[in-house]
């Protein structure tokens, strides 16, 4: 953990990357935080300190709420989620997801032979809507293809039973345009 903290604090480039940016956090990061709070505290603190703020979207909220198995648990988890601003699900995002989803699906089906989850597609749509100020943090690096996104930073956290590799992503519009050309032929 100290290594991760040192990397984040000492790295001027990491501070630069987060300067004036907001960070959308993935469901897997919330789950890991809940499961191993002390292991992820430094990463959370550094992201929080150096960025403009951390946030979620309504899809990530819903996905995370699935772990609740009764009303009390749901209420507690909602209270925790309320600590993060939830980006609005508005017209721009809905238009973006409609445009991006087929392209995202195209590269995932070719490269990984798998379909894209709607939650992931919405995360990418939010990145595009709030470009260039929104970044995305996830452990599910294989779900976020570099044919659409740039992975601008990465690191690992060892929790003994497994190693979590986080990736920080931003949208790449040139890559998206190339994919669009492949998809539409125009």
């Amino acid at each position: 953990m100290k290594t991760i903290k040192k990397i984040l604090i000492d790295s001027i480039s990491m501070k630069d990357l987060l300067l004036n940016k907001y960070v959308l956090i993935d469901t897997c990061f919330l789950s890991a935080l809940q499961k191993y709070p002390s292991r992820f505290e430094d990463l959370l603190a550094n992201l929080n300190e150096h960025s403009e703020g951390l946030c979620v979207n309504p899809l990530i909220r819903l996905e995370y709420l699935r772990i609740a198995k009764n009303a009390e648990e749901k209420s507690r988890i909602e209270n925790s989620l309320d600590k993060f601003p939830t980006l609005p699900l508005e017209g721009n995002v809905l238009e973006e997801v409609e445009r991006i989803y087929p392209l995202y699906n195209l590269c995932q089906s070719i490269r990984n032979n798998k379909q894209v989850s709607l939650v992931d597609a919405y995360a990418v749509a939010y990145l595009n809507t709030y470009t260039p100020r929104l970044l995305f943090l996830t452990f599910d690096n294989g779900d976020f293809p570099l044919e659409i996104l740039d992975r601008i930073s990465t690191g690992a956290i060892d929790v003994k039973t497994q190693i979590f590799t986080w990736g920080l992503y931003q949208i790449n519009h040139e890559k998206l345009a190339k994919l669009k050309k492949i998809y539409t032929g125009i």
Partner: protein
Amino acid sequence: MKNTYATNTGTLPKWNKLDIHSFLRELKETKRIMDENDKKDPYRFDINERFVAQ
């Protein structure tokens, strides 16, 4: 190259930063309650299993 995907339509407001210590305290308490609930009900799946799919 003109990029039709660069919408730049969204604006993000300023908001208060997360209170890390209070947030983590809440998470730990929630996890403790979930652990207890799991122990009370032998048919409930283990808390660690809750996170597998995410």
